[in-house]
């Protein structure tokens, strides 16, 4: 379902980090155009 899609991956420190989301998305065939991890506390 992600093949050929462009993805923006926003990670969170206490959740899933941005690079982990990006890796999953790339493995699923998506193009990650931006990935970042943020901390909201």
């Amino acid at each position, binding site marked *: 379902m992600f093949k050929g899609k462009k993805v923006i991956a926003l990670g*969170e*420190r*206490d*959740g*899933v*980090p*941005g*690079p*982990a989301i990006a890796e999953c998305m790339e493995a699923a065939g998506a193009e990650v155009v931006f990935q970042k*991890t943020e*901390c*909201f*506390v």
Partner: protein
Amino acid sequence: MVPALRAASNVLVHVPDLVRYGSKPWRENSGGDAALAGALSRRLRSFAEAVAYPPNQVFIGNMAPGDLGEGPSPWYENPVPEASAKGAFGEILPQEDFYPLLEAADQFGLLLFGPDAPSGADAASAAAASLLEGSGPGKTGPGKRGREEEILGRIESGEALPLHRGGDLIGCVRRDHEADESLDARILLENLAAKASGAYALRHLLLQEEIAPEEIEYVISCSEEAVGDRYNRGGGNLAKAIAEMAGCAGAAGVDVKSFCAAPVYALVHAAALIRAGVVKNAVVVGGGSLAKLGMKAYFHIEKEMPVLEDVLGGIAFLLGSEGGGAPRVNLEITGHHGAGRPSTPQVMAEALVRDPLERAGRKICDIDKYAVELHNPEVTLPAGAGDVAATNYRTIAAMAVMKGEIAREEIPAFIESKGMPGFAPTQGHIPAGVPYLGHALVGMRAGDLRSTMVLAKGSLFLGRMSQQADGASVVVEV
């Protein structure tokens, strides 16, 4: 020597008129949105409201963390009746008494207060009053009172920022170099706020334990501010500045930094120095984070809540040698997150909880209480930032399931028994597990608690030098 945790102190400083200098409000308001600035000032709390706020009462030790879960919510609508600003192991300082502390912290004439500014002469806090002895207007230091024209002149020239009490201008803070962004007025105010609140926490700890400041040998600061000029931004040693202000004249000082994980590292380092015989005692101290004031204020305003991020936190812990029932800091059970490991919550929980306990032959269920990052969920949830403590407890419980220590259906009971609601202000390093240590000492002295693991994580990726997070843990037990 076997290192032990001998005392803990948690302080809060209510600074409604400094919320505007938090990073987020400053950025929003400097955009010139007067409506936003007005909304912010209308939603600020009074000192009495901040004192009666249940999580703040837990922070200073007048209520147990578990009381929050049993009491009515939302907490901000259910103040504690007859709440006191003085707690079992902490206290809450009003802004009126903090401005003089800022002035006492200033050795470079950065602050200029007018004749109507508070002097701190009537400070109800013994810790604040003792820090003000020998400093301030007419005594030592630069604390002369300025004329109104002088203050206005500095502000209008662009070199200084105004300091207020309610709607009144009472002083200003200036930059110390026109071209050095590290010595900008707001940055210097951040650093002074961390120094003053850290010294306040340290002096409160010393008074509470009736220890002369001169007896302290080593001070480690886990504060977050990047103290330094343009050639050495973050050069640091705020520890020594705090020690000096608190009167610890013989103490060496050093900063330990790792974002919000720093307090746990600092505890481990202090305990290791004692165990190695380098020093007989050490204090870990953290001053408050001005930058984080009002970080989520606009979510709170949107939801018609008070602005809850209106306090600076301060923490101080005294470590010495075992004896007299003081719990030991067990350096055999310390967790670290290796630089090459992924930063996922599961790997972090393995590194901080599972692995150190396994190495020591302990089970996850052997620890009585886990003190994770104890951010107050009432602050974070309206901003969509989740319940940090609850998330971390679920991860630890899941680890216990994976190890076969508990069944999946026992997760809620595990969290209820070994966790607690977050109660600390969202001040970065301040909620890092360590605010529970005061409660742990109370529980251990009463024989109700045998062990706690303190664990915290740091967001290294915020500095853009690594995509990594970091983490550290240590067990304190009798």
